[in-house]
């Protein structure tokens, strides 16, 4: 029965909404803290969800963030409607970015977002369909990293 236990929460994001950037990741972080999760897990989930949130705000039209917390792990799935990523391997390269000059002036577009997510999640999957959108799936083990 324990596997069925699951806390779910859903958030929506709008592309271009820079003024509210970081709000969803902040809410996720607060919720995970309230649920009493290990501080390192909360920290890693907060970093990864911020990077994913910023990607939607910077590049997509809209997105959904779905959070699921089970006794074993935390899963965050971010789906967006947007231009998609034609070459995922290239996008995963540290330092590679398609950010505009305006985004760079705000301190974004360092080409560190996706690598930051990969480093902080225990399992990270990315699927993208150019012209339609992108899905990021990240899982964080609650008892630290699996070996």
């Amino acid at each position, binding site marked *: 029965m324990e596997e069925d236990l699951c806390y779910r929460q859903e958030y929506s994001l709008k592309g271009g909404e*820079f*003024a509210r*950037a*970081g*709000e969803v*990741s*902040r809410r996720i*972080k607060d919720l995970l803290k309230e649920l009493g999760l290990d501080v390192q897990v909360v*920290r890693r989930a*907060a*970093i990864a969800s*911020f*990077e994913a949130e*910023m990607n939607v705000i910077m590049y997509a039209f809209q997105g959904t963030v779905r959070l699921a917390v089970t006794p074993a792990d935390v899963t965050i799935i971010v789906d967006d409607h947007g231009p998609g990523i034609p070459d995922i391997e290239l996008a995963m390269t540290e330092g590679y970015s398609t950010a505009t000059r305006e985004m760079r002036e*705000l*301190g*974004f577009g*360092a080409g*560190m*977002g996706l690598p*930051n997510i990969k*480093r902080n999640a225990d399992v990270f999957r990315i699927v993208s369909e150019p012209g339609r959108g992108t899905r990021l799936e990240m899982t964080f083990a609650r008892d630290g990293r699996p070996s």
Partner: protein
Amino acid sequence: MTLSDIVRQLELKVHAGRGGLDRPVAGAYIGDLMSDVMAHGRKDDLWITIQIHPNVVAVAVLKDLAGVIITNGREPSEDTVRQSEEQRLPLLGTSLGAFELSGRLHQLGLRGAR
């Protein structure tokens, strides 16, 4: 060392978040790239930056940083000030540049490496 010690000794301007000034500071990190600070900033660090937009507040709160010092006399945007107040995040300012400010923080005994 608390933030208020630093504010007093370096005559920093308090833009917002006065309520959080009794917070202890463990170290400091300089960066103007959000992802860089997300990756390398640590809890209770003081963040030194020239960025003035509200995303600074989001990053600082998510990383549990002690506070932010905006250098070169730059003024934070209204949104940034409002969000700092809401989050009780000390948002400080100085006319010094990042290099000079870091030197003085070092003299006060603050270190980046822990």
